């Protein structure tokens, strides 16, 4: 399999996916939940479920000020209850909460308040700030770590490039599930909450791990297929300077391609086991973690794809464009580059 040979194709596919994702995100936007906007959620379960319009009318009929924006969503039944509703309103104070809960519970039969959450707008804004900071901080730490861990492989591309590409593919891996969330929000009314942020952050960790494993193999193979020549010369001040010249005995593109193929089975198997665990969580884990598991599955798929078909083609493309390196023809003695 020649993945690097088809790098233009894979990079184009990735570019298209990214453009579509951005278009979805910009076009549809994310539905922010009360975790971010502030507000109240009241969830009530019934043994005999009242009509949704009845619920809507009851809430609208309550004497609470500024209760303009009320959304009512039906929930699935379980072993003990036949179903229920989640009512989202602006943030309610204690007496308003009491009114809403009492009104809802008295509808239908066997009404029971199962969940109530209210979040002030300040806390919501703070959470949004925190999420942005956390993602930024993780990205920064990772690029630093990768650059340091790969500092031994300066040739033919600097170790910072490995760090940079890790971040670029990380953006891809986060963008795809976020776009999926926008679709879920548009079609199913799914709202972005803290669990979604957690899922995205988990995707970050997973994606980095995946990319690093392949880069680790590149690092190892580069050391295997290069010869080292140390020349000494005196500089103007008379201090002896050592200069190391590396010569690759195999083209860079081939080395990267080999590395990808050697780690291919591992990439597939690891994402497969993770997907199996997540599929179980999605199917049997209940409604609380359903979206979480789905978003993670999409993120894991995106991460596996990018570590094989995106990060490494990008690495070779960069080496060709920026370093003017002919990566596919064998390097002879004259073509030796210096560090």
């Amino acid at each position, binding site marked *: 399999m020649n993945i690097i040979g088809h790098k233009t194709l894979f990079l184009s596919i990735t570019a298209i996916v990214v453009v579509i994702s951005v278009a979805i995100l910009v076009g549809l936007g994310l539905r922010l939940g009360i975790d971010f906007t502030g507000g109240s959620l009241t969830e009530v379960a019934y043994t005999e479920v009242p009509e949704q319009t009845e619920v809507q009318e009851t809430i609208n009929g309550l004497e609470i000020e500024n209760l303009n924006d009320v959304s009512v969503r039906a929930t699935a039944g379980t072993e003990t209850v036949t179903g229920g509703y989640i009512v989202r309103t602006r943030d309610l104070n204690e007496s308003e909460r009491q009114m809403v809960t009492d009104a809802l519970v008295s509808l239908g039969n066997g009404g029971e308040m199962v969940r109530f959450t209210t979040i002030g707008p300040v*806390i919501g804004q703070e959470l949004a700030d925190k999420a942005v900071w956390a993602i930024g901080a993780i990205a920064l730490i990772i690029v630093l770590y990768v650059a340091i861990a790969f500092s031994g492989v300066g040739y033919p591309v600097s170790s910072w490039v490995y760090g940079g590409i890790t971040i670029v593919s990380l953006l891809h891996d986060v963008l795809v599930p976020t776009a999926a969330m926008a679709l879920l929000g548009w079609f199913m009314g799914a709202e972005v909450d803290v669990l979604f942020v957690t899922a995205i*952050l988990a995707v970050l960790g997973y994606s980095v791990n995946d990319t690093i494993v392949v880069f680790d193999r590149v690092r190892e193979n580069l050391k295997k297929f290069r010869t080292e020549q140390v020349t000494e010369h005196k500089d103007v001040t008379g201090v002896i300077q050592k200069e190391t010249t590396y010569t690759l005995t195999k083209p860079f593109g081939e080395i990267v391609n080999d590395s990808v193929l050697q780690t291919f089975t591992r990439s597939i198997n690891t994402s497969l086991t993770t997907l199996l665990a997540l599929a179980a969580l999605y199917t049997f884990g209940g409604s609380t973690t359903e979206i979480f598991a789905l978003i993670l599955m999409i993120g894991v798929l995106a991460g596996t794809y990018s570590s094989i078909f995106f990060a490494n083609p990008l690495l070779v493309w960069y080496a060709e464009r920026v370093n003017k390196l002919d990566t596919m023809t064998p390097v002879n003695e004259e073509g030796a580059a210096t560090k």
Partner: protein
Amino acid sequence: MAAPETETHIATSEVRDNPVIRWGRALATLLLGAVVAFFVYTNATATNPDYPFKLGLDLAGGSQLIYEADVSEVDPLEVPELMNVLRDVIERRINVFGVSEPIVQVEQSSFVSDEVRHRLLVELPGVTDVGEAVAEIGRTPLLEFKLIDSKALMEQQLESSFNASASGTVKVAIKDDVASSSATSTATSGNPYLATRLTGRYLESAQLDFQRAQGGVPAQPIVLLNFNSEGGDLFEEITGENVGEQLAIFLDGEMISSPRINERISGGTAVISGGFDTDEARELAQNLNFGALPLPIELVSTQTIGASLGHEVLSQGIAAGLIGLALIVAFMVLWYRVSGVVAVVALSIYGVIMLALFLLIPVTLTAAGLAGFILSLGMAVDANVLVFERMKELYREGVRSREAAREGFSRAWSAIRDGNLTSLLSAIILFWFGTSLVKGFALVFGIGVLVSMLTAVLVTRTLLLALPETKAESGGWLSRLFHSGINKS
């Protein structure tokens, strides 16, 4: 190669390949795993275990309340200490309420937000009637001592009574009064009550007492206030400087008594008397004891989860975890054969170590934490897969199985180290920044990464090295077991 080196090489390889040592280590590992599993089992099934699983509110049902403290009136340097006092007071009040294992924590908005906000996080497991809980906690007797500016007070009373009689409604009249008095007399600025620095934060205790009956007057209930040394000094200072003035005692912004200061009072004890019967006095003393809040607080967020919903989430989470584990086990054994079996044993030991750590640390399990654990199951396999793939390469090249395992480990190590360390760094940042829900996930995820790295390196390696040795070209059933995949070889 020099002769002595060859000798050491043989010596170490003899020690390394000594079956007694190899099997002894493997047995010890398995035994250790069994002990940990037994510890988890006994604690999970016992009715009153020493180390119970701690379930978060979303799994056990209950209420979470977040209060924000108003710190605008106090010195920023004193805030941390005041918040701790506040926590203790609320904790005492909840304990009276009779909630089992409540959590009261001081939280600070992280440095990323523009303004530092101080919050109190209250978790009440099992309490689903949040109204009652809020009322109980919100019964905020904020005790304040204010000096009365008698001139301003008289002016105010005069004007308001005048305005009240002139216009129809008292409400409007008072509004006018504020405007007019601030306009006419700048000296008093209209507020007859001057704040002193003395508040309930300096109160050590309050107790019910009775004033001795004198002559025909029956015994009067009084409330004795004992200040701490700082409060005592302050009280002495205030009384000393304002002899002849009235000192008003405010509870939650309401004046409950306004005794005249007759002399400088030292010793740190004050008396509130008059205007209440014995029951009221006792309640006041109790409220002050349990609730002299050092800072005013405001409820900013509540969350209540019914017990049935929590129970459902928990049982579904456990089911999902077990099914996920079964799927991973099936895949690993089918694909990696004998190595897969080793991985499954290692994964099981990973699982019980994680559960034991949940019990011992203890980690409060939430839906997010449970999801983190299930995710970590999938990722814990990764280190094993990395090693097995390396092993397989060497094995196909003709390296004997045990040497392949040993070499496979050392070659896979750099990838395992870098991958896990970056994941660990992410987990630490998540924990640092996160809200309590994200923290639960990050903690489980971070511990999971560490433990999975340890089990891969210690358990998987020890067990693999204990296996009988074979070569790829020997072609027997044993040699086939060391291959992988769906092909027969």
